[in-house]
């Protein structure tokens, strides 16, 4: 039969210009007329008329006809629909939603806290308006072929730079070390941290003056107070022009009050500022010393001139010290350079004259951990979404059959993921607000939530965008690609391969978690290793405090009174504390010394009872004794020194110090004064003169409780020193502070490890519940056929256990590599032992089994009648 069809090109033409409902109507009319005409006037004529009709229909007035009866979906209505559906989906699967939102929220919280921490670190010192142009003047010196870098400078360095390189710098400020000073207002004595600056200090730092001007340090007898100190001393009174006493010696006039420096600045502890001129008055030796370039006892800060770069300025001053030192000193090849303020916090370490970094490595470390934890949370989302895909495949099939376009499905899934991400973000903000105080405590920070920073909110938006995209992309693109026909017919099966990426992601999650567990264990081991190191003295029951002038004047009476009261067993004074080295000297000589060897030994002058008080162990020779008058020119050396000197029996040997001979009378155990992660330096001890200065150490009486003894000491001390705050510290606490930065890393990585595990477990919990649900029928049948609960438990748990074991295998070498790298920085380090890896693996496995078992046992216990009844 001959076909009686209208010309197809005309029909196509119609469809080009008309949307479907209108085209349908018009085509119907055309077709009907065509059929009619075929009957009446013949095919050819009918075709011709058909074309004419089509052409006549192509008129603009018809095309622009608005069809009110068809709802015209706009983007917002679809969006509303997406969100409604997403919300219903969340409500329907509460457990699943909880896992998703909770996991993501925890991940985001961690990422946000770390982000805030990094922001704080990176913005360190930015409070100072001249942040980019300020630098600390430092020097490299070469000793025995090794370059050491130090901040300590001669007191004449600042004035010299100012005189010779004036135009290069805007300000040059010589400064003291920050220290604790007693301020007295009448009978009110307080101890405050302060520093001595040359007059340009305040203007260089751009302090925000509350009262007075930047020029407040011109007069040597003046002082500038921070707002908090001014308040605590003067209350509501106007402090300007009032007179205070510093160190119970110098009357100074308050010339300014400045806003307290925020916690993320290097000078945060500087609560009072005094003129450098006053320091010179208090330390007259600094001016009268024979060789002012040979002694490094102060700091120098500078602000480079506006048109000069930091590097250029640094290059110009490099020989400023070398040009002034003696020939003897010149062989250390002193190079003066600028360390910019920008780098003080994050790049504070120097190795062999090169700025190698410092805190920045923790910024990287925690940054990476933060990203990883966030990725773990996103993985949960992706995994759960794809795991549920079989369930939602039907939904996708029906939606497609009803007419959803793929892009609508993609939008639907993205709407769901963005809803979850936004909710998680809200929860995370709340969590961050709750967790900031304890986090600040651990991290030793004063971080605040950045409510008012547009950058923060932009970052958060970007963050939500990224996370939503990351978490939603897989389900959106994967699920929406299902073929409706196969899905609805039931022939659709998510094949073997579909589970592979899911498994890979679980392995990734656990790899990260296990690396963190191993890391935490080893950091703690390293701390414990260093803590267990012999310290050379007995730190328990030891108390340390400063020596006031009154005590120094009546030292023997004070000591006798304390002993007779039974408060202490012994007490002694040294110019260096037990837990630090305040004094190192060169100028030593001995028989057989290589003339080119440069030496710099920590040394302390002590009273006779020092050894007895701290409880050091005499290995050779004897301790100092009042019975030998010659002990005033005797040395006691430590074992490291004995090794350094290379004497088999050093007792009785002569050691010259500035050409004065000293006899070595004893060798004692190495006392751990500096970092417990590094070897003890060769050190020596000698008897102090009659002027007792520095630190007093008291051995409390073992029979009394420390509190009783301290109360007694204070009572007796007050008799001698009536008006000064009584301050003391336990040596074991001081010693414990040496581990602070390592312990901080340990604590933080422990928390992060716990959170990573938590998130991974949430994910695996969701997966297990899903698998159990999916296999309900299978379990029922197996049970009917006689499988025991144990069998079923094995069946459901095995898969996950295998994944965790794979993760262990991957994680171990990674952890080993990075931790070996970390430990390499410590001279005294723990060896990584195999059992750490076993413990971490076993721990991860155990946690996984517990998590999964909860679901699998529940599934295995279900009565098969129930699971098989339906269908």
């Amino acid at each position, binding site marked *: 039969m001959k076909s009686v069809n209208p010309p197809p090109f005309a029909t196509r033409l119609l469809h080009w210009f008309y949307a479907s*409902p209108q085209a349908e109507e018009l085509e*119907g009319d*055309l077709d009907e007329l065509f059929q009619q005409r075929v009957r009446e006037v013949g095919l050819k004529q009918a075709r011709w008329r058909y074309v004419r009709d089509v052409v006549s*229909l192509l008129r603009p007035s018809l095309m622009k006809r608005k069809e009110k009866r068809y709802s015209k979906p706009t983007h917002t209505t679809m969006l509303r629909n997406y969100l409604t559906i997403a919300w219903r989906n969340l409500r329907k699967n509460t457990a699943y939603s909880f896992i998703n939102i909770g996991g993501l929220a925890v991940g985001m919280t961690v990422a946000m806290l770390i982000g805030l921490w990094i922001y704080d670190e990176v913005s360190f010192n930015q409070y100072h308006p001249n942040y980019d142009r300020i630098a600390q003047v430092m020097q490299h010196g070469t000793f025995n072929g090794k370059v050491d870098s130090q901040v300590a400078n001669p007191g004449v360095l600042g004035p010299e730079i100012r005189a010779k390189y004036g135009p290069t710098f805007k300000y040059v400020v010589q400064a003291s070390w920050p220290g604790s000073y007693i301020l007295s207002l009448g009978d009110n004595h307080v101890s405050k941290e302060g520093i001595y600056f040359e007059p340009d200090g305040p203007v260089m730092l751009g302090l925000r003056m509350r009262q007075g001007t930047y020029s407040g340090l011109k007069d040597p007898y003046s002082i500038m107070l921070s707002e908090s100190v001014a308040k605590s001393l003067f209350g509501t009174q106007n402090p300007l022009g009032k007179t205070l006493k510093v160190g119970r010696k110098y009357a100074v006039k308050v010339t300014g009050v400045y806003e307290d420096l925020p916690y993320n600045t290097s000078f945060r502890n500087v609560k009072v500022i005094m003129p450098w001129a006053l320091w010179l008055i208090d330390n007259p030796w600094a001016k009268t010393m024979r060789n002012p370039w040979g002694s490094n006892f102060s700091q120098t800060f500078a602000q480079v001139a506006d048109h000069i770069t930091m590097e250029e300025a640094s290059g110009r001053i490099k020989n400023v010290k070398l040009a002034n030192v003696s020939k003897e000193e010149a062989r250390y090849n002193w190079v003066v350079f600028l360390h910019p303020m920008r780098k003080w916090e994050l790049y504070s370490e120097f190795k062999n004259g090169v700025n190698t970094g410092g805190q920045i490595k923790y910024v990287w470390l925690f940054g990476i951990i933060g990203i990883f934890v966030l990725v773990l949370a996103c993985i949960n989302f992706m995994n759960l979404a794809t795991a549920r895909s079989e369930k939602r495949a039907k939904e996708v099939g029906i939606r497609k059959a009803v007419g959803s376009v793929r892009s609508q499905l993609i939008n639907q899934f993205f709407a769901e993921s963005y809803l979850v991400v936004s909710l998680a973000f809200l929860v995370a903000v709340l969590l961050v607000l709750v967790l900031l105080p304890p986090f600040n405590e651990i991290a030793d920070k004063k971080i605040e939530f950045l409510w008012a920073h547009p950058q923060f909110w932009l970052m958060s938006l970007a963050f939500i965008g990224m996370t939503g995209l990351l978490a939603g992309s897989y389900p959106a693109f994967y699920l929406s690609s299902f073929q409706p026909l196969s899905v609805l017919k039931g022939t659709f099966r998510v094949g073997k391969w579909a589970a592979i990426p899911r498994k890979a992601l679980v392995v990734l999650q656990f790899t990260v978690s296990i690396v963190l567990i191993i890391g935490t264990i080893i950091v703690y081991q390293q701390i414990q290793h260093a803590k267990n190191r012999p310290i050379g003295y007995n730190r328990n029951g030891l108390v340390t405090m400063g020596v006031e002038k009154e005590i120094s004047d009546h030292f023997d009476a004070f000591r006798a009174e304390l002993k007779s009261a039974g408060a202490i067993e012994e007490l002694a004074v040294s110019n260096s504390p037990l837990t630090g080295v305040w004094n190192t000297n060169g100028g030593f000589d001995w028989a057989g010394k290589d003339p080119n060897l440069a030496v710099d030994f920590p040394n302390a002058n002590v009273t006779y009872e020092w050894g007895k008080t701290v409880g050091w162990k005499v290995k050779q020779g004897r301790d100092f004794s009042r019975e030998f008058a010659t002990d005033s020119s005797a040395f006691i050396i430590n074992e490291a020194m004995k090794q350094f000197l290379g004497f088999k029996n050093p007792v009785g040997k002569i050691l010259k110090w500035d050409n004065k001979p000293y006899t070595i009378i004893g060798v004692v155990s190495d006392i751990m004064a500096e970092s417990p992660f590094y070897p003890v330096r060769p050190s020596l001890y000698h008897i102090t003169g009659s002027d007792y200065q520095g630190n007093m150490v008291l051995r409390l009486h073992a029979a009394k409780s420390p509190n009783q003894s301290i109360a007694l000491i204070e009572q007796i001390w007050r008799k001698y020193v009536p008006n000064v705050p009584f301050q003391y510290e336990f040596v074991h606490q001081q010693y414990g502070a040496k581990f602070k930065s390592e312990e901080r890393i340990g604590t933080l990585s422990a928390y992060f490890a716990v959170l990573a595990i938590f998130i991974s477990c949430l994910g695996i919990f969701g997966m297990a519940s899903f698998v159990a649900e999916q296999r309900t029928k299978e379990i029922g049948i197996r049970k009917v056929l006689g499988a025991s609960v144990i069998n079923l438990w094995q069946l459901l748990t095995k898969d996950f256990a295998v994944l965790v074991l794979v993760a262990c295998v991957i994680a171990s070498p990674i952890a080993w590599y990075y931790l070996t790298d970390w430990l390499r920085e410590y001279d005294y380090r723990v060896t990584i032992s195999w059992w750490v890896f076993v413990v971490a693996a076993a721990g991860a496995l155990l946690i996984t089994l517990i998590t999964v078992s909860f679901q699998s046992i529940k599934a295995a216990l279900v009565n098969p009648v129930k699971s098989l009844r339906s269908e």
Partner: protein
Amino acid sequence: MKGTYLGEFEEVVLLAVAIRSGDAYGAAVVSEIEQQMGRSVNLGAVHSALNRLQEKGLVSSEMGGRTTERGGRRKRLYAVTAYGRRALDEMRQLRNQMWDTIPRTVWS
């Protein structure tokens, strides 16, 4: 004001809709006019006239249900509104009135 004036073709289309009332759609109107007037009209002209009539409120329209006719394609069914009916009445009265006022002598 729109709607006060009815063109000749519009009037014809409106009448065709009235004739076919209950089953007045594009193709039906076309064949009705062709049958009644013996002249061929374009579908496009009819549709645009229907369109204008609807804008003027003389007809209303509604999509019909699916039937087995026309390959299952739906049709838009038009109906004369009360206002359309009045317009037709007025038109007719006007014509009658004019006829009545023609002097008899003219034709004889």
